[in-house]
């Protein structure tokens, strides 16, 4: 187990390396000149040249990439004009746009995204698996149909529509909830939760249906298996059968999915954060992409990549723990 995890973690490093190369490559394919964007539209060519040198963009790509890699291991010193700014390892470089160390930028913004992601995940797993379960228990009934409609409406509605809808309903019309502003968890856990409720819900609604469908279909599949018949024959109630004996097996694909969706969720978190104005990495990524802020983009992709890859390892371990027949390999 430990050696397995260690091996997988090594794999994550490889994944991150590939990711960073991919980002560097697409960056050089994409249009636009970051030096010009940093310098402003009315900069003259000479000034742009100076800024380019200042950002290190005048060097060949492989040199830049090498600097990036060494920065992660050893850190870097950057001139501020009057002195030096030390960027500790792991240094992902300085933002082209704001001169801040990327690591700082990400660390500052990670809590908001992590809160959003965790909250949304909990909500969508609860809503998704819950309604999947319920719709199996109430097969063919009104409950199942209503649940299906609601969750499907969720998947068919983009965050920028459901977000506004939720805001108008709960914040503007009913005034039950505050307009979300990010309150750090350590400052005030209660406000943190209230403020995150809507963004998490908007994000969760998008994913919940998927889990509801998967849970349902998977449950129906396991309910057809022989071992379920055993418990039926012993008078175990339908709820216990579904909840205790069918669900376990049915959750296997759901676990695999959750981990994989962790990645696509960052995409949706991007829109959610922009929509609700949460200071998370998603918003940072949108802005960095638009302004071709390479260090920020690479840094973010690597951090989210690591998160996704680790989530996948956790899922695989969980999966093996849940189903001992599956050997970790």
């Amino acid at each position: 187990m430990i050696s397995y995890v260690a091996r997988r973690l090594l794999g994550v490093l490889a994944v991150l390396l590939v990711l960073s190369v991919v980002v560097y490559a697409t960056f050089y394919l994409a249009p636009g000149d970051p030096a010009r964007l940093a310098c402003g539209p009315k900069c003259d060519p000479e000034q742009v040249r100076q800024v380019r040198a200042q950002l290190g963009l005048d060097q060949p790509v492989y040199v830049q990439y090498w600097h990036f890699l060494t920065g992660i291991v050893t850190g870097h010193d950057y001139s501020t004009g009057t002195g030096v700014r030390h960027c500790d390892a792991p240094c992902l470089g300085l933002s082209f746009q704001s001169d801040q160390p990327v690591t700082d930028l990400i660390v500052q913004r990670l809590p908001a995204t992590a809160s959003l992601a965790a909250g949304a995940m909990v909500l969508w797993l609860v809503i998704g698996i819950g309604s999947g379960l319920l719709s199996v228990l109430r097969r063919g009934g009104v409950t199942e149909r209503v649940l299906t409609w609601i969750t499907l409406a969720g998947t068919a509605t983009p965050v920028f529509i459901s977000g506004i809808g939720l805001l108008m309903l709960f914040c503007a019309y009913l005034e039950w909830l505050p307009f979300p502003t990010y309150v750090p968890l350590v400052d005030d856990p209660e406000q943190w939760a209230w403020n995150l409720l809507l963004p998490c819900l908007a994000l969760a609604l998008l994913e919940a249906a998927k889990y509801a469908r998967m849970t349902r279909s998977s449950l129906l599949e396991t309910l057809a298996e022989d071992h379920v018949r055993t418990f039926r024959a012993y008078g175990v109630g339908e709820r216990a059968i579904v909840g205790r004996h069918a669900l376990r097996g049915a959750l296997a694909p759901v676990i695999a999915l959750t981990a994989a969706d962790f990645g696509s969720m960052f995409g949706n978190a991007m829109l959610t954060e922009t929509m609700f104005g949460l200071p998370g990495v998603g918003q940072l990524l949108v802005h960095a992409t638009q302004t071709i802020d390479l260090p920020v983009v690479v840094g973010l992709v690597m951090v989210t990549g690591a998160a996704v890859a680790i989530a996948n390892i956790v899922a695989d371990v969980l999966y093996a723990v849940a189903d001992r027949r599956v050997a970790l390999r």
Partner: protein
Amino acid sequence: MTELLTAPSGPSGTEAGAAAPASGARQVWRRLRARKAALAAAAVLGLLVVLALGAPLFAALEGQDPTTYHDGLVDSARGGVPVGPFGGISAEHWLGVEPGTGRDLFVRLLYGARVSLAVAVGATLVQVLIGVVVGLAAALGNRLADSVLGHLTDVMVALPLLVFAIAVTAVAPEDFPRPLLLVVVIGLIAWGAMARLVRAQALGLLKLDYVSAARLSGASTWRIARRELLPGLAAPVITYAAVMLPQNMLNEASMSFLGVGIKPPTPSWGQMLSSATTWFRADPLYVVLPALMLFVTTFAFTVLGDTVRAALDPREASRLRVGRKRRTRKGGSS
């Protein structure tokens, strides 16, 4: 000896006289046809396709086209909100007009269906294809293949679709058909989840004796994958594909939102939705129409996916009948 080798006169004998039973595919088809829900969903999707393909025809019927501006139909001083009740519904404009431009919404929805359906279905197919192949290869291959493919999947899962969409659409040749480009971009990037799902399921199935039996028959790995695993994978794959489809529609919407989607003036549901965001209260119909189309499509695909999944399972035939019976005749059979 001879006596023993004749078929027993047991109950199975009653079937002997019956016409040769249908083959697998035909049985699935028969089970599918027997379901009203499947027929309804297929009908809805068929209608959508007809509406999309026949968009010019229906536009001519209404006497409108998707691009003409109607300045007179919007209240310029009030942000271009359509004149008249319900988003400007009238005999000329059956579903009203678009705020700001006065373009006919009915026709735009029809033309939008073309792009949205094509992109969503196309991208989903690409995702399913890659996801199934990679997932199966990872499950069936040796440790090295599994870990390489696993890492590839990790990379894909971690790639932010929208960021790469921006880069790719920017470098794609100007005259490369946009819908196709979207299909390629979404399809090639967002297949990781499917691959993981397939791998997990396949690993579970591989533990069963029938796969061992297939191996004993000398079947190649590829044949095992096709004959023994795919039928078992069909259920989760179809279910998941049915939920990926609306996600792909939303991906197209998000890409339109970021300006890398379908090129105007061509409409798509996603593009319509993304520009309708703020019109919730001023012109609700403008938001509701594309959202409704998205919902109906999602719903139809989900129902169809669900029924196809069920029809593929020979055991399901008896299972579903239960629900009906239980409701009508309580405790009638035991």
